[in-house]
């Protein structure tokens, strides 16, 4: 907390509503009170019915801190004694000669000799710290001001939270899906390993394919049994099938051969009789 030696102060009753408006006016209001060679920064705050305008020299304060061996990075914020003026109704002793006290509602460094002998001093504590201060060492060179920092951080953290919650929800869905498969596999322990599952599937798919084909062939042959056609032989083995059919006339033979050709079966006439041999691979 800066004592009044480090800042220049002016009270003004202005009809200004917002501090950013007051901040714009600060240089012109304090212009006449400041030595021209300084490089000033400004702070404003509302007090009772008016505004308090403060100018301070950043470099002067830094120099002072350096002299006292305090690294400026260690100072996060600057507060002005005027901000806590109500606390100085009872003076705070600064050293053997001076005290900080409220004089006509202005925080002022007062020589002890001017204070009455029986005055009670109070100690300085964290309770003196007012709500708003000026960023100093830490973050002093930041392009982003503090307000924007907190807004941006809040937005990004909200997004982070949203993404995390979504991620957790997806993980939950994954666990539920895996649980469903586990429940199903519980009833069929032999199918638990993907390897054995593949083997079993391959075995049954092969059987299914071959047997369906055999049945299709049998159905196909039955469709060749045109009116008057008689079955002489039918042989169905693992890899091969053949059938010998006896036809009533030449017309039926031609039709039968055409049907067999349509189905992709091998066909031939047997001997001089009206016999036709149909064959194929399975």
């Amino acid at each position: 907390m800066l004592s009044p030696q480090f800042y220049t102060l002016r009270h003004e009753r202005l009809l200004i509503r917002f501090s950013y408006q007051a901040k714009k006016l600060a240089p012109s209001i304090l212009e006449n009170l400041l030595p021209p060679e300084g490089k000033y920064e400004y702070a404003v705050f509302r007090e009772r019915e008016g505004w308090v305008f403060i100018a301070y020299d950043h470099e002067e304060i830094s120099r002072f801190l350096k002299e006292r061996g305090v690294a400026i990075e260690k100072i996060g914020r600057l507060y002005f004694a005027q901000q806590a003026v109500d606390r100085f109704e009872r003076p705070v002793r600064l050293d053997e000669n001076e005290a900080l006290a409220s004089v006509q509602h202005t925080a002022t460094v007062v020589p002890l000799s001017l204070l009455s002998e029986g005055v009670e001093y109070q100690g300085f504590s964290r309770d003196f710290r007012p709500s708003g201060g000026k960023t100093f060492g830490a973050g002093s060179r930041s392009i982003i001001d503090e307000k924007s920092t907190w807004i941006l951080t809040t937005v990004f953290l909200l997004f982070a939270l949203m993404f995390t919650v979504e991620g957790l929800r997806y993980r939950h869905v994954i666990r539920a899906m895996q649980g469903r498969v586990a429940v199903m596999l519980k009833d069929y322990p032999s199918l638990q390993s993907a390897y054995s599952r593949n083997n079993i599937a391959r075995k049954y798919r092969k059987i299914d394919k071959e047997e369906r084909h055999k049945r299709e062939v049998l159905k196909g042959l039955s469709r060749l049994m045109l009116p008057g056609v008689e079955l002489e032989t039918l042989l169905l083995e693992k890899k091969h099938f053949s059938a010998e059919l006896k036809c009533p006339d030449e017309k039926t033979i031609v039709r039968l051969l055409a049907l067999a050709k349509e189905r992709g079966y091998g066909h031939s006439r047997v001997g001089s009789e009206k016999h036709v041999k149909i064959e194929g691979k399975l």
Partner: protein
Amino acid sequence: MIWKHYRNELIVLASILLMLLALFYKGSAVGRLDRVDAEVKRSMMEIGEIIALKKQWGDTTLTKKIGSLRENLSPEKIKRFSVKGKKLYALLEGLSDREVNGIILKLENTAVQLTKLDVRRKGKSYRMEIRCKW
């Protein structure tokens, strides 16, 4: 400590990093969900298919069902009908064309693996040899 001068940027940067980390976490969860979803669907389909195929081609009641082949056949036509384990060997003689048709139809509708089906005409009747397993 120079970084302290840029505290605000560092705070914002840290929150961006945290957000990116969360985004990466979500992205990896989505990717994993897609993979697991495809895997689960494939597994479920595979398991369902295996169960259905097993039920069809590995039906334990087939040993009983296969006996229906000799239904409505007079005993003298059945020369041999032996079921050993999960295999059938049947030799039938003197069958009419209608009986041959009926037996072939039953075989078609029974989930057995036909290893041999031999039908031969003998005069006006048929001789039939059936070998199958299940």
